[in-house]
């Protein structure tokens, strides 16, 4: 993967998060503490600021560097979780991965996230987007980069009727029902951003 492509991936992710920061914060205000957008924005601004260093590295190291930056800059619950995801991908991916490599690596990175969060899909968290996206990705097929954003968006929507049992929203019990999980939304935004870059390619 060349440096320019990595740059475009980082820019797309950062742009998506920054553009939707207020929306993410508003979602988090409803069932959390109203900082998810601010947290993610701070993290991806830091990644963006360090982009030339990061993209100079081979893909696995670049991902580990992104993960470390997210851990050190995002804070909150999403920092360690997205950081773990990125670092997990970095550990599992070869320098020039195939689609199958990527799907497998995502699966392993998601396991790391579950271990870090003591969580599973179905608990109204980012995992409710990450897991179905990984499943669809692993199933593969034509135009996968074109189809995944819809899978992610639907999965994020599907968190609305869920009752949270992880994350801050879990303190609300029944009252968490009826709102989209902010982390599910940010995951969906990131999937969309990444896919758009692959789509253009």
């Amino acid at each position: 993967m060349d440096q320019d492509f990595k740059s475009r991936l980082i820019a797309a992710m950062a742009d998506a998060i920054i553009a939707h920061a207020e929306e993410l914060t508003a979602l988090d205000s409803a069932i959390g503490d109203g900082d998810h957008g601010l947290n993610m924005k701070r993290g991806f601004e830091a990644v963006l600021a360090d982009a030339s260093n990061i993209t100079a590295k081979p893909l696995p190291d670049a991902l580990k560097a992104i993960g470390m930056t997210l851990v050190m800059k995002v804070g909150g619950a999403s920092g360690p979780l997205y950081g773990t995801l990125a670092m997990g991908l970095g550990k599992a991916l070869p320098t020039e991965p195939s689609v199958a490599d990527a799907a497998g690596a995502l699966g392993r990175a998601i396991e790391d996230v579950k271990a870090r969060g003591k969580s599973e899909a179905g608990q109204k968290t980012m995992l409710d987007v990450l897991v179905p996206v990984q499943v669809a990705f692993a199933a593969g097929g034509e135009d996968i980069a074109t189809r995944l954003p819809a899978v992610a968006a639907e999965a994020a929507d599907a968190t609305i009727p869920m009752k949270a049992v992880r994350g801050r929203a879990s303190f609300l019990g029944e009252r968490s029902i009826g709102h989209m999980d902010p982390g599910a939304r940010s995951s969906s935004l990131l999937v969309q951003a990444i896919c758009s870059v692959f789509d253009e390619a």
Partner: protein
Amino acid sequence: MKKLINAVDDVLTESLQGFAAVHGDIVALGEDNKFVRRRNLKPGKVALISGGGSGHEPLHAGFVGLGMLDAACPGQVFTSPTPDQMLAAAQAADTGAGALFIVKNYEGDVMNFAMAAEMMETKVATVITDDDVAVETSTYSTGRRGVAGTLVVEKMLGAAAEQGRDLSALRALGDDVNKRTRSMGVALTSCTVPAAGKPTFALGEDEMEMGVGIHGEPGRRRVKLASADAIAEEMMGAILTDLAAKPGTPCLLLVNGFGATPAMELYVMANAARRILEGRGFTIARGLVGSYVTSLDMAGCSLTVTALDDTTLALWDAPVHTAALRWGC
């Protein structure tokens, strides 16, 4: 948003600088504001390190000093600090006996402190506080939030650490104090996170949020504004049911303001809580009233009860010299 601030992005830094300047006899600010450290460390003592999102001042930096914390890591407003902060704090405060992390039970805080603990090469243990009875727990859930009772845990652990207890004894003591401690809160208004610029939630002129968390998280239910007595009755009821202490038990009562509630109202609540406690046969051995574990500019308060025994009472009474709590020296 009406706040005494300059740029939104500078609030945290400037507040920490003001704090460090005013309390320079007690604390020192770590590089990049990663932590606030006790100025004079006591060699051989276990380092007590806490931290969490900012906006709860004086928690935690205001509790750094003799007889309480050795360092506190301030996160962004209402956002857990990051592992590099805890690592830097531990490096600065650990004099060889290891570090004890005191962490409020929020997944963000728990995970960030856990990552720091995993990265550390020196001895470390963790105590998690989860005193908020407003959250109805189940075995599947994240459990309860850590709220104002954290002050009690930090104070008693601080005294015990000062007396030379080792890391595993302190961890066990921390768990014990946490188990003896229950809290519940009520909000009359929302708070406003500076970076958000508008209130986190909206309450009608005649509404309150019963069981609110310390980040303006919704609580048990939104109800009509009630009298101090009725509010205290509901909160103490939940606290005492959960605590299940024997009548006659000497208690510590903490009436904690959330930031925008003045002392006059806090003492009205203290009076209400006292009548209820005494009515149920408990003795108030010690009391503390003030805004110690706040939610920025939220109006409201929490009540905390700790069931004391001789050991914990003595630890509470032991000397403490921090910016926000001071006695015995």
